[in-house]
């Protein structure tokens, strides 16, 4: 958009604001005045811009609340970064390319996280429905999970999507989704919670922090039993990384929770807990502290809690009731909430119509003030309230606001640049260009081969060799696999090795003969290619037989790709012993035997093997050109990637080039300094008489006085 166009747009808005100001504005439930409009908007969003206030003034309380609730469908106004979609990176296999590549992989995940932070902040700044973002942040705080636990940005993005889609939905459904959420299960170590060795971490926090509240209606014995109910709720080890219910480690026995006996799992545990008499007040109180005031009224909490339970724990009825309580509209409640760092920063940008050039700096600002998004300090979330502000964060807040006030005269944004910047544009590296290979219908195309296991052991004087390789980014006969793992094992003098294929990472139904295997406990199909099986392969679908034939035929060549990988190197163990993996040549011999025997059984491949290097983006290794030379400028590359991930610019729907233009948009009547305070502050500044008058002719100074005041910190 050109500068001239912007001016015109601003002028049009200014005219609209004048028209709004002309409307009658008597305060009260039937028609909000400026103060009330600002109160409603800034409590349910991030600050309140002059044009938002103008369009809210004159509405009744109920109309204003309904308008906000109507926007709560959780849909973001711009799409999440592309990498957050279904494709998953080979996080479990990347180590086999060596520690340097693995570290570079981590750098990329950290950059992904920066990108997601930047995306969320930009969404907060530009969305027409800021309450959705407030609620999503509320759940992120409530079901606190940190990226620093799993280092899995994709899980964090998926969790964010869950919070967003349930943000104003139903608490029961949200809680169930969280109890099946990989990032949460990892964060609270439920991946180690098994029937043989229960781990209480998740069960404890589920009662204490997520549902009932510390000390409200549960006992240590309930925690122990709930931990049993949550055993086996884990994450898939192979294939698409997601929730996995492990029947072998789940405790199917009967448990006694709250005096009720049953074979509870996570789903049943949520239902049972949310039906307890004691459930309700803890959550409602949290909403009160977030949206109403710092002093919950016990009788109102009880009333709202009952109302919420009657509404089947749907959140919209609770929010409507909360936002129409007398306490919410009581003028004494103004200024009783301390702004969170996110509210402070995003609210300032939206209220003043500032232009943001670099979200990365915003991320740092938030961290300085104690609220790094996607990295709450612990599972209890951020302490909030007056705890946001201590001597140190007070200083940080003043510093950040002072900086924000200068974000007026940003250079003209290029629409093209804004659209393309989120993609990786690395000046210092040229992605290896791979000509699109010619792939025929029977060709097996493989993006990357990882050697993951190479074991050689003696069992009862018999040599056992086992090898696991994972093919990544695979296609064959019109089907695509994210990953496809192959297990080959040879015991002693057996004629043929055991040969197994993982079927769990291909959508939909890549194996016609084994449909629906994705839900099954054992997602491996395996066999020993013995000649006696010849009669049995008849019932295997032709397509499946052709795939097995292709994999078997190309197995030695696939293995050859892993010759330089880490799995073949001796490893130092904890006790100082050296672990000696299987020899490459022994595994090659085994693999060739497997090929011969399998081909005898199912025939050989009809097509060729196409080894097409996966694009760095597919492997999660953006910025990498050559595994061997990455070390030389590792840090430079890391910084470049991080910056590329988060450097893009945007601005709120309405923005202003100068403070003077902002002042021209203010609703209401009276001295301009008072009108500005009315839009930005919940509690007035102490009268400063002559001082205000002196700076009234200087819009920047006037804004600075308001925004850097202690009063601006509360809402």
């Amino acid at each position: 958009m050109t500068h001239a166009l912007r001016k015109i747009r601003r002028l049009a808005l200014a005219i609209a604001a004048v028209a709004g100001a002309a409307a009658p504005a008597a305060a009260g439930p039937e028609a909000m005045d400026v103060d009330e409009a600002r109160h409603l908007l800034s409590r349910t969003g991030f600050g309140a811009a002059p044009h938002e206030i103008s369009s809210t003034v004159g509405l009744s309380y109920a109309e204003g609340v309904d308008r906000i609730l109507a926007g709560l469908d959780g849909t973001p106004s711009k799409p999440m970064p592309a990498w957050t979609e279904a494709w998953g990176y080979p996080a479990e296999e990347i180590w086999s390319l060596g520690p340097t590549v693995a570290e570079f992989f981590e750098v990329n995940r950290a950059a992904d996280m920066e990108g997601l932070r930047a995306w969320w902040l930009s969404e907060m700044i530009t969305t027409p429905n800021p309450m959705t973002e407030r609620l999503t942040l509320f759940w992120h705080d409530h079901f606190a999970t940190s990226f620093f636990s799993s280092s899995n940005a994709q899980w964090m993005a998926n969790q964010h999507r869950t919070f967003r889609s349930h943000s104003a939905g139903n608490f029961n459904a949200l809680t169930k989704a969280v109890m099946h959420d990989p990032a949460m299960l990892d964060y609270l170590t439920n991946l180690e919670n098994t029937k043989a060795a229960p781990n209480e971490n998740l069960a404890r926090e589920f009662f204490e922090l997520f549902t009932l509240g510390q000390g409200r209606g549960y006992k240590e014995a309930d925690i122990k039993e709930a931990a049993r109910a949550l055993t086996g709720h884990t994450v898939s080890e192979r294939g698409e990384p997601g929730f996995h219910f492990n029947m072998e480690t789940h405790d199917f026995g009967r448990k006694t929770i709250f005096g009720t006996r049953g074979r509870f799992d996570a789903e049943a545990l949520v239902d049972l807990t949310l039906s307890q008499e004691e459930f309700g007040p803890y959550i409602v109180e949290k909403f009160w502290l977030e949206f109403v005031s710092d002093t919950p009224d016990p009788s109102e909490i009880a009333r709202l809690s009952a109302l919420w339970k009657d509404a089947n724990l749907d959140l919209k009825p609770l929010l409507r009731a909360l936002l129409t309580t007398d306490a919410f509209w009581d003028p004494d409640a103004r200024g009783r909430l301390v702004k969170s760092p996110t509210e402070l920063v995003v609210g300032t940008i939206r209220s003043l119509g500032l232009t943001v050039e670099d979200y990365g700096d915003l991320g740092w600002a938030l961290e300085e003030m104690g609220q790094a998004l996607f990295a709450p300090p612990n599972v209890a979330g951020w302490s909030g309230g007056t705890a946001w502000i201590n001597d140190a964060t007070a200083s940080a807040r003043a510093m950040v606001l002072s900086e924000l006030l200068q974000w007026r005269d940003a250079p003209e944004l290029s629409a093209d640049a804004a659209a393309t910047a989120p993609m990786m544009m690395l000046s210092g590296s040229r992605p290896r260009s791979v000509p699109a290979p010619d792939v025929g219908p029977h060709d097996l195309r493989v993006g990357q081969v990882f050697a993951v296991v190479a074991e050689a052991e003696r069992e009862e004087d018999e040599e056992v060799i086992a090898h696991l390789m994972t093919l990544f980014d695979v296609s064959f006969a019109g089907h695509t696999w994210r990953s496809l793992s192959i297990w080959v094992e040879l015991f002693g003098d057996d004629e043929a090795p055991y040969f197994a294929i993982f079927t769990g990472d291909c959508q939909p139904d890549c194996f016609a003969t084994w449909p629906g295997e994705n839900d099954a406990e054992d997602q491996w199909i395996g066999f020993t290619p013995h000649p006696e099986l010849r009669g049995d392969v008849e019932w295997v679908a032709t397509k499946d037989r052709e795939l097995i034939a292709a994999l078997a035929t190309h197995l030695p060549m696939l293995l050859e790709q892993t010759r330089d990988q880490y799995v073949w190197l001796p490893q130092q163990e904890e006790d100082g012993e050296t672990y000696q993996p299987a020899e490459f040549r022994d595994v090659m011999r085994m693999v060739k035997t497997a090929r011969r025997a399998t081909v005898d059984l199912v025939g050989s491949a009809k097509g060729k093997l196409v080894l097409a290097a996966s694009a760095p983006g597919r492997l999660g290794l953006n910025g990498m050109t050559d595994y061997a030379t990455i070390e030389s400028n590792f840090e430079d590359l890391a910084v470049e990637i991080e910056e590329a991930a988060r450097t893009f610019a945007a601005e709120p729907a309405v923005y202003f080039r100068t403070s003077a233009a902002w002042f021209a948009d203010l609703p209401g009547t009276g001295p301009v300094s008072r009108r500005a305070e009315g839009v930005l502050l919940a509690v007035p500044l102490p009268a400063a008489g002559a001082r205000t008058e002196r700076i009234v002719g200087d819009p920047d100074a006037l804004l600075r006085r308001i925004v850097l005041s202690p009063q601006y910190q509360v809402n």
Partner: protein
Amino acid sequence: MTLLLSPTRRRFLAALGVASAAALPGLSLPRFAQAAQNAHAAGKLLVLVELAGGNDGLNTVVPTRDDKYRALRPNIGIGRDATLTLDQDTGLHRSMREMADLWEDGELRIVEGVGYPDPNRSHFRSIEIWNSGGGANGLNPDGWISQAAAKGAFAEFAGVDAHGLVLGGEMGPLKGPGRFSAMRDVDVYMEALSNLDGSRHAVRPTSTVEPLEHVLSTYESAKVTGDRIIAKLERIRRDNWSFPDSGLGIQLQIAARLIEAGIRVPVIKVVQDGYDTHEEQPDAHAYLLRDLSEALGAFSGALKDIGVWQDTTIVTFSEFGRRAYENGSFGTDHGTAAPVFVAGGGVAGGFAGARPSLDRLFDRDLVFTTDYRALYDAILSDLWGIDDNAFRRAGMTGLQILRSA
């Protein structure tokens, strides 16, 4: 991944017009000229080191001759040969060489079995209990140090720059009213102070709205405290000692720099995070204890050079120890009692308190032998002569940590 963060941070500071510390000229006084000036700067200095996450006491101070220990820890237990000998029954985790040196110099006291009755195994509740000093059912949200300050504990330190400085982590024991500041990054802190408004009125405005009153008073105290600290810190712009490049190492390096600059403050708090070792504990724990030991070793060396080691007492604390028996993930779950390290030039070295018996577990876990409030009483009375304190009045007494007390 600090690799990623540091360049951004530099850029962030640059954007705010803050010069990097490295670019500023070194202005330190000759070290020994300063020492005399520092010696009694703030009476006795307490340095609190929070081991966040719950440190596994049994694998830190190891009962090497106890067969029960090996039975409880079949996989992650530490053998006698893999420890540094403290006495014939006890070994220190072998990562802690510097701590072992302090032990041999008689400057390390290990208080055994520190905990409290009716233990809570929630991180957040248990650290709250430790921070507030109120026992399992205490509800006071303020820290035990700030409570003591409110009752005049630091009255004799007229002219101190602050009652306490938090260099890392939560305010914890220093949370609440009083002159307690957090300074987690010196350069950012210095720049920020210049932007603090609202404290330049002759009479500070007040508010009856509690959150706003909190903001007003915080702005005021941040400004006053900051101005004084910065004025002193201006003198020293160079780090004279090398510390581990870890979170804890950096915090203690800043502490050393502040002390060298003659900051007058009775309490400094630092944090080391990561002790919540539910899984794959042995490597992670060894790394943490090595970092702790190396950082404290460097810190004690610096304080000896400055000449204030005799007046310094370092105390570690953690929300809880870990379960006596290991779990199925080569880790340990939340437990109860654990040993506390007390180190310093005036500290009475050796063991204190009784070691919890592994034969008499309650709820399959350790039973505490020293109430943590006896430790707090010992700190208040031994360091600052505050014999009449809430903990002693409650009967929590009987522990001595300094030689001369």
